[in-house]
């Protein structure tokens, strides 16, 4: 798996904006001139960001979360032939992920083949925690899960959901930072708002 510097050195105590700025100045003391200039010229916006309340949370046992939306990033090592199979499968699916629709909480997924097709970088945004639902996946969509995850080393199979969850967590690397545009909207709520918005437009059409 990928090695990661654990994002652990977070300042525990609440710092004032001035203290934070001071720290950033120290960090940028040996930055390239371009960086130093950017710090000086961009001070107004940076100060606003530093003054706002912190939004970062953790998702389940690993990963970052903002509001209701969590991130999951994994580096998965392919078994022999795995990259070829998965690439072929993904190309033939042509962007139709019915299993992800069924899960209901997945905002997006990206599949990036790296290191000469020896590893997959898989990154997704989803609602809440996935750990509590791993047994539901195992019960409802085991084949959809096994079909793509069987291309990776050490994957135990969805018939053993707890082991599968542990396997995913083992390969997970937490994002150092995580930004969500609408952190309080789940996938289900977004779809609901789409329906409501459409209904309102239709109503307005009838009036106007």
């Amino acid at each position, binding site marked *: 798996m990928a090695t990661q510097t654990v994002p652990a050195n977070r300042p525990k105590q609440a710092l004032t904006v001035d203290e934070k700025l001071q720290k950033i100045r120290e960090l940028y003391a040996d930055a390239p001139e371009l960086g130093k200039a950017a710090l000086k010229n961009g001070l107004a916006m940076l100060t606003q960001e530093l003054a706002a309340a912190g939004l970062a949370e953790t998702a389940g046992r690993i990963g970052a979360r903002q509001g209701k939306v969590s991130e999951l990033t994994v580096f998965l090592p392919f078994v022999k032939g795995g990259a070829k199979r998965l690439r072929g499968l993904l190309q033939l699916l042509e962007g139709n992920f019915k299993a992800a629709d069924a899960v209901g*909480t997945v905002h997006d997924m990206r599949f990036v083949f790296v290191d000469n097709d020896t590893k997959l970088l898989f990154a997704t945004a989803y609602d809440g925690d996935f750990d509590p639902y791993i047994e539901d996946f195992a019960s409802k969509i085991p084949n959809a899960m096994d079909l793509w995850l069987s291309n990776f080393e050490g994957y135990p199979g969805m018939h053993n959901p707890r082991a599968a969850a542990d396997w995913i967590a083992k390969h997970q690397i937490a994002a150092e930072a995580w930004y969500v545009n609408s952190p309080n909207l789940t996938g289900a709520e977004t779809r609901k708002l789409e329906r409501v918005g459409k209904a309102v437009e239709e109503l307005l059409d009838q009036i106007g």
Partner: protein
Amino acid sequence: MPVKEAAGEAVSTQAPALEFHEIQALVLRPRPAPYFGIHVLLRVDDAQAGRAFLRRITPYVDSSENWSTANNAWMAVAISYTGLKALGLPQESLQSFPEAFRVGMAARARELRDDGVNDPKRWDQPYGTGQVHIGVTAFSDSEEKKRHVLAIARKEYEGFSGIKVLGSQDFGAQPGDRNSLGYKDGIDQPAIEGSGVAPLPGQGPLIKAGEFILGYPGEAGISVPMPQPDILARNGTYIGFRKYQSRVGAFNRFLQAHGSTEAERELIAAKLVGRWRSGAPLTLAPDVDNPALGVDPQRNNDFNYANDQHGRQAPFGCHIRRMNPRDTNLTRLTDVNIHRLIRRGTTYGPPYDENQVSEQDDVVPRGAIFLFISAKTMGTMEFLQSEWINDGNFIGVGDERDPIIGRQEEGAVFTIPKEPVRRRLHGIETFNVLKGGEYFFLPSLSALRWLGNLGG
């Protein structure tokens, strides 16, 4: 999407016969009506004394043999992780238990969303301190039989050095089999495959025994991981023990704030739960109570939500629709069958009174101790607490929480879907406050004997 795919591995479809003579009676025997009983909490200060106690008490612990027709008085003995340790269970075996069980319920407060007023720091003594080692529960259908069972147990733990009684809690049905907020409870229980009794109408599909008892295939086709050795685990299960204090004054104030007549208040009380206080489900009696329906086990659970997909009868956020969504269209991929628990609710304290509205009425000791039984109780309780009780997204009600057992945030609301516009009730409070909790292992009868004879 197919509704349910076949599992990825070949599985046996033949349900194995349950070893009723090994499984403790508490697992399968329903609560009698009316019911009487007591929970006794013990601490083991000396391993030998603890094991001697187990050897003395085990002959009186009832099995599930003939559970559906058995005499309605029985005793159960359950042991916590610290209890197993105090009894001298070898380290290797201790380590084979699931992590959540080992660290205990209080240490899993984050996963269980036990924060704010439910924070373990605020629990009654001795819960969450690691001192609760053994729980003895006696159930019966009369006060006299309960006293008889208790006398037997007491003879085996009282006056022995090395065994300390930490406390006890009498419990019993209140008039009309009601709980401390005035509802008939305990109606909907999961139907277990192989238990030998036809499910009640509406009890849902038979659920594999391995979801509830260790050593049998579960819904995924395999047994959930078992602690070791086999003799200790097989036919055993886990209990999540939760003590709640009912804030009867706050509940009545809420009803009075939103309902000006008794009929209005009763309808709101029904909307919060999904059943009238009589037990009659709103899905079958949407507009007026039907007490005859409420008490009839052949009819009071015989429904689904196919004709209530907008929640106009049973609101999406009501207690029973959360705890068993049945065929409700959920926002997340969910197998409802794998999140069920057998529950034995035991009500304590004075009966419900609709006229009690003061803040003092909130602290009168009364409420319920729940025993949640499953082969994976810890995981299921964490799922229920975080997803179905203290959240609403799974069923499309946003941040709303379970109005009965949720831990409410400031400004909490409850939505009642209605034509032409929904009604939203403000001022929902935490009506049942958690006062303590423990995880126990409920060993088989052979395992109790094995534990009693540890160390020769």
